[in-house]
């Protein structure tokens, strides 16, 4: 759900979210052949376009020293708020810094922040959700009630409250997003483990004496992996939106380190003076990134589950 309502629909904020949650019952089907999945994905033009965009974005972030053209933090003189030109492709900001250089550097920061936050979300979500789904009983009840509580707090409020605990910085932004956003993923994985553990192959594994850890890691987890990958892709787009929102509010990544969110905050002051390029370009970058991840996530889901194809 685009909760949060700040921006966008968070993937599986509740695991039963019908649009963006990964398909259920997928794991029950025989594991699709890898090449068949790739072929189905390749047929989806939108998804391929999304994947290409992501490759370009990450390449640009990695090649930042090569393509930045100017140091992102070099404060110039007499070039305040200059519109886009041949020298400064995307113009300059109120401290005469080159917007293109800051956009590329900011992309590095935003993409890395999103990725790191998703690693935290999925690690906590898969571990807790998996344990709860497998063991059931009070472990499960405890986790479910805890997620009930966390999911009842509007995500952005939880983030702002948690962010106020620390000095704002790139690292705390990642940690705050990671620690606040895992409940949806946990419930999704829990549901899958719960559905799978009653199936015959698990009973068979138990019968030959496989210990619980082995059953979870070798039997349940591989069968849930497809869903986890789709979920992670959708969370990548959402985590980038959350980082941008927090930084826009001044609670995330701090200047002089640029991120797409704090560039928007910084540029907003110059908006009344007509410096539209300070607002337009960082926002476009966020939009393209989120769009690309959503397209890929959607394409992956369809490719992994032929029953859901092209709905």
């Amino acid at each position: 759900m685009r909760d949060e309502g700040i921006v966008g629909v968070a993937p599986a904020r509740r695991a039963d979210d019908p649009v963006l949650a990964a398909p259920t019952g997928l794991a029950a089907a025989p594991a699709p052949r890898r090449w068949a999945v790739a072929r189905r994905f390749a047929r989806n033009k939108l998804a391929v376009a999304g994947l290409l965009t992501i490759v370009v974005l990450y390449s640009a972030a990695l090649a930042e020293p090569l393509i930045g053209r100017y140091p992102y933090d070099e404060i110039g003189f007499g070039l305040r708020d200059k519109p886009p030109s041949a020298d400064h492709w995307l113009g300059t900001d109120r401290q005469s810094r080159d917007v293109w250089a800051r956009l590329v550097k900011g992309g590095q920061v935003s993409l890395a922040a999103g990725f790191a936050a998703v690693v935290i979300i999925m690690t906590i979500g898969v571990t807790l959700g998996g344990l709860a789904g497998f063991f059931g009983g009070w472990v499960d009840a405890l986790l479910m009630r805890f997620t009930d509580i966390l999911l009842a707090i509007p995500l952005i409020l939880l983030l702002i409250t948690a962010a106020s605990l620390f000095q704002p910085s790139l690292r705390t932004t990642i940690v705050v997003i990671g620690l606040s956003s895992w409940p949806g993923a946990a419930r999704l994985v829990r549901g899958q483990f719960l559905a799978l553990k009653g199936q015959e192959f698990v009973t068979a594994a138990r019968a030959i004496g496989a210990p619980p850890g082995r059953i979870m890691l070798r039997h349940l987890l591989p069968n849930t992996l497809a869903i986890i990958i789709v979920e992670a892709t959708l969370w990548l787009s959402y985590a980038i939106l959350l980082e941008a929102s927090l930084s826009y509010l001044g609670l995330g990544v701090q200047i002089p380190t640029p991120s797409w969110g704090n560039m928007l905050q910084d540029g907003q002051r110059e908006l009344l003076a007509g410096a539209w390029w300070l607002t337009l370009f960082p926002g476009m970058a966020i939009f393209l990134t989120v769009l690309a991840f959503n397209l890929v996530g959607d394409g992956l889901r369809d490719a992994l589950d032929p029953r859901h194809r092209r709905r």
Partner: protein
Amino acid sequence: MPPGTTAYLVRRVLLLVPLLLGLSLIMFGLIHAAPGDPVTARLGPQAAANPEFLTQARKNLGLDQPLPVQYVRWLGDLLQGDLGNAYTFNNVPVLDLIQSRFWGTVQLQGVSLLLGLLIAIPVGIVSATRQYSTTDNLVTVGSFIGLALPNFWLALLLQIWLSVELGWLPTVSTGQARAGFPERLEYFVMPVIVLALPNIAYFARFMRSSMLEVIGQDYVTVARAKGLEPRAVLYRHALRNALIPMVTVVGLQLPRVLSGAVIIEQIFAWPGLGRLAYDAIGQRDYPVILGVTMVTGAAVMVVNVLTDLAYALVDPRVGVQG
């Protein structure tokens, strides 16, 4: 009503008590763990120069007591329907503050939700009945775009374009309370566009897949085969069942309606709950933060129960267990 509904309802409502207790404990812990307190947040650095004054100010607010004592006091007041007085906002009772802001958020989000449904349902139907047509492809691409647009960015662009450049609409909603009826609507235009857009994209996408699912079922084929008019098949047989899952989707969006879009209310200076909470967190106004979280949290939990119940009522195949 399906059998067992009353027992189910009682169980779900009783469960709300421990959930709300847990919610209050988590939020209480979080806000007190944050560095700084209401006194330093309000008085700033110069207060530190006068420790005697600081101690007295904390004592007046009851902040000199141990945390468990503070929590039990707060909880005791809550059980008597008293959320305390705000530290800032002229010390008005938190409940009054929430009441006045609640309405602002509900109006704004309610209009955005309704508009979203009114546009999305027909769009979804058209898209599903002409699957893979140009219209359908446009709707698919359009909803992906609608879901990916960062709405605070869109809000900034609309502000600069519609208010600053063209001067058509007021930039922020500070004059809203004093405006008469038709003029008041002007303040709604930009926030509603921004908030309705993701709703439209999301609902349309969902309506389309729900409709496709139903159209593919046997009873629709039967209705067609017996020679029923296509329109009748579509609207009398398919649409009704396709709308059922929308109950859940709208239910899932309602928490958002109640919690307020913090950033959007901030940008348009909208007098709603989201902005209240944001200001309160910055001011370390503990009673207001706790009050808003408890009210929105309770509302979200109640809506979750109602959504599950509504789903069981409109779709007799769904039982009420769990």
